[in-house]
């Protein structure tokens, strides 16, 4: 179960790149290594940009487990309770009819319906939650990648702390990289 602290931190709670350095590297593996170096160097504000999800990156970035599962659980329980109370009201209170010699409250017959309502509610809540938490479609604030190629074939690390270019170079060590100022990225206005 997620803790309250994790709930507050949530998913997608990272900083918006506004200043600092963009480090372009060659591969996803280099990006992972670079991000580990950045973290070890004690940099507070940093992020990575890659065209696809990279395994192991969420640990380096300190992304917490999403609380979407809790939304799904609550919506599922709501669906089941709604279904049970609705059927109970119809079958036992409002219009009791005997079917096949069974009692008014024949719970085994309700299970498939409750099961389906649980899934229906949970599914809608999950899809809604993904859209809301991922700021997809419903929100006007879209997170802007520092370069258009970060959605195509480029791997970048953003470092937002106030450190010099030499320090960034030292942090990256022997990883093959290029360093740009965030607002002067050569790819900002097209290809190099």
């Amino acid at each position: 179960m997620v803790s309250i602290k994790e709930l507050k931190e949530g998913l997608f709670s990272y900083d918006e790149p506004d200043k600092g350095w963009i480090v372009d590297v060659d591969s996803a593996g280099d990006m992972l290594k670079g991000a580990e170096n950045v973290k070890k160097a004690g940099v507070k504000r940093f992020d990575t940009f890659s065209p696809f999800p990279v395994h192991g990156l969420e640990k380096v970035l300190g992304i917490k487990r999403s609380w979407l599962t809790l939304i799904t659980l609550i919506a599922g329980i709501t669906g089941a309770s709604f279904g049970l109370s609705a059927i109970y009201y119809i079958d036992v209170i409002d219009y009791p009819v005997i079917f096949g010699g069974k009692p008014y409250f024949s719970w085994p017959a309700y299970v498939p319906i409750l099961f389906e309502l649980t899934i229906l509610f949970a599914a809608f809540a999950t899809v809604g939650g993904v859209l809301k938490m991922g700021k997809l479609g419903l929100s006007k604030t879209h997170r802007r990648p520092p370069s258009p190629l970060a959605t195509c074939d480029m791997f970048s690390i953003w470092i937002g702390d106030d450190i010099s270019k030499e320090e960034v170079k030292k942090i990256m060590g022997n990883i093959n990289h290029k360093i740009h100022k965030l607002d002067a990225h050569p790819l900002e206005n097209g290809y190099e």
Partner: protein
Amino acid sequence: MKSYELPGKIKNILLAFIVIGIGSIVAGFTVDAQRAWAGTLALTYFLIVLALGGGFFASLQLISGSGWSVVVRRIPELAVNTLYVVGGLIIVIFLGIHNLYEWSHPEAAHDHILHQKHWFLNTAGFVIRILLFLGLWIFMGRWMKNVSIKMDSTKDESTKKTLVKVAGAYILIFAYTFSLASIDLVMSLEPHWFTTMFVIYVFAGLAYTAFSALIILVYIVQKNGALKEVNEEHYHDMGRFLLAFTIFWAYITFSQHMLTWYANLVEETVYLERRLRDGWALFTPLLWIFHFVVPFAFLLSRELKRKPEKLIRVAAFTLFMGFVDVIWLVYGFLDSKKIGFPFSWMEAGIFFGAIGIFGFIVLNSYTKVNQLPVGDPKLKESLDFHQTY
């Protein structure tokens, strides 16, 4: 790569389990022969479930082309070796055919339903079918195991392609033969009963039992300093498989019993009715609670699935419940007044015997082969396996 060494302590424990198992059956025959026959059948069927479950897991992973499971695939591949012991036990079952199966009695000719079913349920057909299935299982399981072991040295893509084809054939043959064997061995104990869901019910139980056994074996092997490559990521996936089939078993069980309850036909309700009186009145609800509700609640937790020392406790419990489910299936034809509570010292002894036989054979075979399928092209993918949230 160094192969696994079975520590003497574990070996002795497993051998002691086997002695307990044999002792319980022998003692059982002196106390209540009818019950001991049923117990022998339960032991045989449980071993078939464990052996075929291993093959099912291995072939499922192969035909789906999954990468994560390569590091844990060697152990289930070896489960086929248990079938030699099953062969011996099947002979015992053949000797006790009149004690177990009502349709084998001469009076069956005067029973309308049994007379109608005689073309399928007759002694000669039963013996031939079971021997044929057993031969097929051993042949296919050994074939898959041998190709996989051959791949350790060839290390090429073409052997893997052959292996996937063998796995495809295995799973097809498994589906038909396990269904028919379950109908022959277990369902025909109550030959007047009609259902269309029996086969899928026992299949759900098979996967549940096999995944529990897999988790336990991997953990034991790891405790003895081998198979270091398996980490929490792999346990997480094995735990998820167990959770999936815990839910699947409940789904199938509920579907079967709900339809029986709803339709209320005599030839269907007799099965459940028999299992809700006398000693069964407590046993059946306990089975439903401890086979599904309790493991389900535990296995939902992500943290538990990622901690092997916690997951292993749930897996040991679900393996035991898999056996209890077999008892539930097999013991129903006995006189419920006479047997009382259907789980006594004898069934507990048989359970220990079964895990002793299975564990000893599989772990002993494991000492003779590579710990991992080192030639599998997907091994790297499995070693680097990682779960995201």
